[in-house]
């Protein structure tokens, strides 16, 4: 970034230099230096969409026709209801997040006394309130709803303050004191390689005749291209952030959960597990979500489980809507990838052998990182091409960042 900033500083001045020459018609400047020095403004956009290819009246088949989105009219007229549009429930309390401020550390103590003293604060929930066996969730059974002994990324959920209003909850959450004993964190894929920090899921996919010597025995009829590349992660940026409303039905120990999730059955199943009740006592509902893009495929559970555990503890409906800044910190994004490749081609351009090593940054827990790697393995690397000899090896980096997801 510093280099880029300096480059910008110089290029601004370069533009100024030539713009002044152009404006004052100062002679003897090569005309090519005066091209493209003015601000490039985006023109008003133009667009059209042609729905005329298929005559909808003659063609009863849906294929090839364009139909309005089923709830498009409701969404554009504001009729559509999202999670936080659900009216406040009788006795509802709101959540304030107590999050780890260290990427990797032992939790020495949690003191919520100051938060609990704030008028309007109802309760505080952390791992101490939960049977350790019930505090576990996630595809790798390696995620904790509330961090118990060690925090493994900056932003990990340690507890929730429950209060009568959003502002009280947020304010009081800031008063919870956590003592840490810092441990060494690993952030990037390169750091994971240096420290050999991987999940135990190293896989190899192979076809044909290929090993390291394939690329060293190169005769005059073939060439080898090799290199490495990195792809950064990406925030899903669903416009509706994660959220949950959990309502305990005290009569038969039942719960109704509204979760902004792409995966209601998983939220139901995991909620039943953490609550220690059969799944048929948990009803999980969602009418629609305001975008998910994979970001709410499994990570919605994180928010929903914490909320429903809080509802169990206080016996009141609990609403948890994650603010954008918190959402970006606590929930996973799309994976950063690192890849090394060697490609052997014949002189006439035909593939002979292809060797790829892939590593993704899975973060502190497994979640969907293996599924994402499988996607790269089965669909990403060879794409539509036929490689007679191919070897793909992959690893998942275990790091102290948020658990990256679909």
């Amino acid at each position: 970034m510093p280099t880029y900033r300096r480059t910008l500083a110089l290029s601004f001045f370069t533009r100024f230099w030539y713009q002044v020459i152009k404006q004052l018609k100062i002679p003897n400047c090569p005309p090519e230096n005066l091209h493209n020095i003015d601000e490039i403004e985006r023109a008003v956009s133009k667009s059209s969409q042609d729905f005329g290819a298929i005559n909808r009246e003659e063609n009863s088949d849906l294929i090839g026709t364009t139909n309005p989105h089923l709830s498009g009219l409701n969404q554009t007229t504001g009729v559509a209801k999202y999670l936080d549009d659900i009216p406040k429930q009788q006795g509802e309390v709101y959540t304030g997040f107590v999050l780890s401020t260290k990427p990797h550390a032992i939790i020495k103590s949690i003191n919520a006394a100051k938060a609990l003293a704030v008028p309007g604060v109802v309760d505080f929930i952390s791992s101490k309130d939960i049977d350790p066996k019930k505090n576990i969730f996630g595809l790798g059974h390696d995620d904790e709803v509330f961090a118990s002994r060690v925090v493994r990324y900056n932003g990990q959920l340690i507890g929730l303050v429950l209060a009568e209003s959003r502002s009280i909850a947020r304010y009081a959450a800031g008063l919870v004191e956590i003592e840490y004993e810092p441990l060494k964190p690993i952030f990037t894929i390169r750091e994971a390689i240096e420290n050999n920090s991987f999940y135990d899921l190293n896989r190899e996919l192979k076809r044909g005749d290929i090993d390291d010597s394939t690329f060293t025995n190169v005769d005059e009829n073939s060439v080898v291209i090799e290199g490495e590349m990195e792809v950064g992660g990406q925030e899903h940026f669903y416009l509706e952030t994660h959220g949950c409303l959990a309502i305990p039905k005290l009569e038969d120990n039942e719960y109704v959960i509204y979760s902004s999730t792409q995966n209601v059955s998983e939220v139901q199943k995991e909620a039943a597990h953490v609550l220690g009740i059969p799944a048929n006592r948990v009803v999980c509902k969602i009418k629609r979500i305001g975008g998910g893009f994979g970001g709410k495929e499994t990570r919605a559970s994180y928010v929903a489980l914490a909320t429903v555990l809080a509802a169990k503890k206080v016996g009141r409906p609990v609403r948890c809507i994650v603010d954008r800044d918190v959402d970006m910190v606590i929930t996973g994004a799309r994976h950063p990838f690192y890849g090394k490749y060697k490609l052997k081609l014949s002189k006439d351009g035909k593939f002979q052998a292809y060797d790829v090593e892939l590593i993704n940054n899975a973060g502190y827990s497994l979640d969907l990182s293996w599924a994402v790697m499988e996607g790269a393995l089965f669909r990403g690397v060879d794409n539509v091409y036929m490689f007679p000899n191919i070897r793909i090896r992959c690893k998942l980096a275990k790091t102290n960042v948020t658990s990256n997801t679909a």
Partner: protein
Amino acid sequence: MSFYSLLKINPTPSMHDIEEAFDGNLCRCTGYRPILDTFKSFSAEATSCGSNDSCGSGCGSGEKKLVDFTEFKPYDPTLDVPFPKDLIRDDFQPFIMSKNGITWLEPTSLSDLLKAKRLFPDARLIGGSSEVSIEMKFKAANYLTFFNALSVKDLEDIRVVDDKLEIGCSITLTDLISELKEMTASKSTLEHHKSLYQALLANLKYFASRQVRNFATLGGNIATGSPISDLNPIFMANDALLTILSENGGTRTVPIRKFYLGYRKIDLKPDEILLKVTMDLPKNEMEIVKAYKQAKRKEDDIAIVNGCFRVRLVKEASDYKIDCLDLSYGGLAPTTIYLPSINDKFRGAVWGNDQVLKSIYDELLALINFSYSVSSL
């Protein structure tokens, strides 16, 4: 909501107005095309498909479309929900409102504001609260007393006095833009003055988003002291003077080049307010001002680096010699920076000479040689 307000202000928007009104709206699902197409049906410039000219894809040729705008009921302004009369005020009365320990003051005259500022030195002066709200929400600032800066109408003037441009500090950025556009278009405006107006407009165009510009004030931007303020480089390059007022201290002026003491630290006492910014207008057509900004995207984004440069040239024989050269940058240091040594070293150098350009590069590289990453906030 953005479009509703646009139609309220301008019932016959151009396509450009429509796109500009949306520069703070993000879409993550569908894409901007269908959204914009819908609103373009309100523009007289648009044809039925939302395109303003023939695009060769069969548009307007009678082929079937998903939506035919002619099927829509025409817009009927009488069906609009009227703006509540009680909220329209033309006589501003000062008042104080207090609840749960939070106090809101609306002084409507400058003298009341100064008195209030003396009595409540910790109070925050709010225009659009585009900065103070961030401090409260994300930086846990616990402010309890606020003044409405927009209620004092004396602070909103923009005028040209004795070849100087004066801008009142509580003018909103949207108002500043429309005033500057009017001044640029006016026949009575001197051609060489426009250089400064256009530099201001260049960076105001991509300053935050329309929604923020509608409320954010000029004074707020100066007082916040962001190192990537899009306006401060322009004020610095043009050696702006800040007029500062307080009830006890009266009036004082500070050159903006000396106003920033450190990262978001400014030379302003708790009982003081910023009254106006004053800048010399370019003296002749040989004095040119330009401003630049680079962000990750054009609209609704904070700058990576921005800058403003002012040069005054004098013609000697066939040479255009530098009489003064003022360079200011944001995004390169904890404050907006002004580079005086450039002016000292290159006075008399010839503009257009490649050797001079190269020496300026060398000097710039020496001056902005930081070895660590600069905070972009």
